[in-house]
């Protein structure tokens, strides 16, 4: 949608903005009214994956860089937040039955006598919040610098990021004294004294999450509409031409990879807050590839599509595994194949191909064109029910 030529937007209300407003209305008004807190919390959890999908739209959809390791960044973001929350939950009073009170329970079980140095700064919420974004971005920067400067791309990049996901999982699982191992960091309770396990807290966190998501969509929209966004598309098409137009292509790739990493990490942090724990099972290869499919189903070129795709796939997963668990892997597999072979641009592509033209025709006959232009951006099936 953002690829609509500038001039066509002149004199019309911006379709993207209308779409975002409608999404906002869905997330902030329709869903909270229509769902109980239990289902709403589930939607909240799905929405944290949407951050990853947004990052992938920029990284993969726009720039053509497919990372199969977004789980790494989602996980690190989540772990940073979990470390802060765990420290708060491990006050000396709460852990007085341990042999070393005041450190997280899993450390005590692993005979750690004091808090490891890299845990110390996570006593501070400010530090933890910065770390949520900074650590993954830094890691992405290092990986990106090494790979893109040496022109590693495409398939090789995908496989190497996948290997990184495998390495990090083994590390987290193996270093259980420092990371909580395979169980992850569990039993998180309060954020600055505020109990995050209550229904009210979950409601508040849901809204915070929705607001952050909308904010991130706007941020992505800004990036895509900037010249940088067009350069990303350009280098996906003809990398050499961009290079020979005087751009240091690697820097742009590093930027978008770091940006996607930071977005994923925000999702991870919100995940930890809403679900109440973080574990290595979100870091590995399988979740990383699943996150790619969220983005692909929604449409790898569409920011809004990615959000709807995430909601739809997760909703389908929950529904199917509740009623027909056997079918779930078939459905998931078919989705992967279908989205690649039949509708490569996902839901957003279907919308643009079939629904948008019809609506435009209808809308053309009306005076209040602007209001209608964006209305149908919600795909017919949302996770609302």
């Amino acid at each position, binding site marked *: 949608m953002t690829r609509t030529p500038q001039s066509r937007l002149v004199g019309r209300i911006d379709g993207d903005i209308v779409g975002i407003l409608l999404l906002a209305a869905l997330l902030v008004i329709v869903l909270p009214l229509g769902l109980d807190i239990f289902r709403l919390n589930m939607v909240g959890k799905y929405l944290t994956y949407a951050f990853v999908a947004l990052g992938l739209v920029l990284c993969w959809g726009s720039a053509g860089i497919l990372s199969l390791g977004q789980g790494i960044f989602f996980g690190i973001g989540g772990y940073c937040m979990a470390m802060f929350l765990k420290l708060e939950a491990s006050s000396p009073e709460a852990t007085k039955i341990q042999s070393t009170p005041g450190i997280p329970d899993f450390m005590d079980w692993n005979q750690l006598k004091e808090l490891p140095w890299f845990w110390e700064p996570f006593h501070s919420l400010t530090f933890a919040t910065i770390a949520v974004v900074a650590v993954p971005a830094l890691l992405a920067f290092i990986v990106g610098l090494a790979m893109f400067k040496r022109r590693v791309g495409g398939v090789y990049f995908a*496989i190497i990021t996948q*290997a990184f996901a495998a390495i990090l999982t*083994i590390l987290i699982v193996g270093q259980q004294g420092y990371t909580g191992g395979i169980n992850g960091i569990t039993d998180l309770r309060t954020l600055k004294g505020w109990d995050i396990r209550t229904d009210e807290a979950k409601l508040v966190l849901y809204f915070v999450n929705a607001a952050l998501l909308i904010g991130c969509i706007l941020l992505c929209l800004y990036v895509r509409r900037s010249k940088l966004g067009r350069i990303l598309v350009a280098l996906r098409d003809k990398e050499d031409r961009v290079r020979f137009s005087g751009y240091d292509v690697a820097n742009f790739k590093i930027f978008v990879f770091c940006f996607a990493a930071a977005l994923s990490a925000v999702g991870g942090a919100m995940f930890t807050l809403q679900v109440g724990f973080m574990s290595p099972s979100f870091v590995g290869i399988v979740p990383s590839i699943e996150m790619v499919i969220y983005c692909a189903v929604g449409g790898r070129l569409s920011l809004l599509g990615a959000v709807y795709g995430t909601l739809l796939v997760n909703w389908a997963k929950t529904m199917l595994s509740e009623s027909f668990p056997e079918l779930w892997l078939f459905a998931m*597999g078919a989705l992967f194949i279908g*989205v690649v072979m039949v509708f490569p641009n996902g839901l957003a592509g279907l919308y643009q191909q079939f629904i948008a033209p019809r609506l435009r025709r209808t809308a053309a006959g009306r005076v209040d064109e602007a209001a209608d232009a964006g209305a149908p951006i919600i795909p017919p099936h949302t996770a609302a029910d």
Partner: protein
Amino acid sequence: MFEGYSLAELGSIFAMQGFAGLILFSVFVLMALGLAIIFGQMGVINMAHGEFMILGAYVTYLCSNFISTYAPALFPAYFFIAMALAFLASGALGMLVEWGMIRFLYRRPLDTLLATWGLSLILQQVFRSVFGAREVGVVLPDWLMGSVAVTDTIEVPINGLFVMGLTMAITIVIYAVMFRSRWGQGVRAVMQNRVMAGAVGINTEKVDRYTFGLGCGIAGVAGSAFTMVGSTGPTSGQLYIVDTFLVVVFGGAQSLVGTIASAFTISQAQSTMEFFLSGSTAKVLTLLTVVVILMLRPQGLFVLKVRR
């Protein structure tokens, strides 16, 4: 860690350790050969490679059950029948997949990655529905299990020898097929210039289909062989995929020699590190080293310098 051991003991341990490295090497080569053909020659990322292997393993399982029930006399030799059937089954499925899916996706390698991942999920569920969620135990003929005592202290596992022999045989066959036969010439021609190869009368579609089938068939044989050393369950295939891809990429995707050299390097590194360090650390270090080297030398170990 070597205090208190005699020189002879150390000597024999190192001999066995060297052999362990060779077995690992053969396992890696066997895993990677099929993929090297599919990825290296055709540029298709087959994430379902592990599932094709497991299909071979299940064929072996069925074969072992069938023969021990209906033709117990044949049992000592059943493994060869099983491998042949595994090759045919995985190869046939591979050709079917190529016809139904892959042929629409040439030139879009990242999309083949996603589509074959989907395929791997479906195959896993099929295995689960047909064979059950539990791992199955494949009964091997007695002569394959056990070991040969070379000296009092050096013992060489027979199945290791078998895997090594098999790897060597398959490598030679592939080399002959790909680089010494007219058909292999056709394959390489198609991979280098599809249009031109078509123009000079090569049936490119057929070449694609058979090449993909060949790669998958080899995966099936590998899976069949792995019933001797590994597990056979619906999700066992996923365990192999990262290692396999790294071996192929590390070797330089287009080069068969590269694949073998990289399998050798990685297996020796891992096996040595496993001996001196602990298991998990060795695995992490191996993966990390491979990835770092790949970042420094993205084209892999062996690659032809070509004009662009």
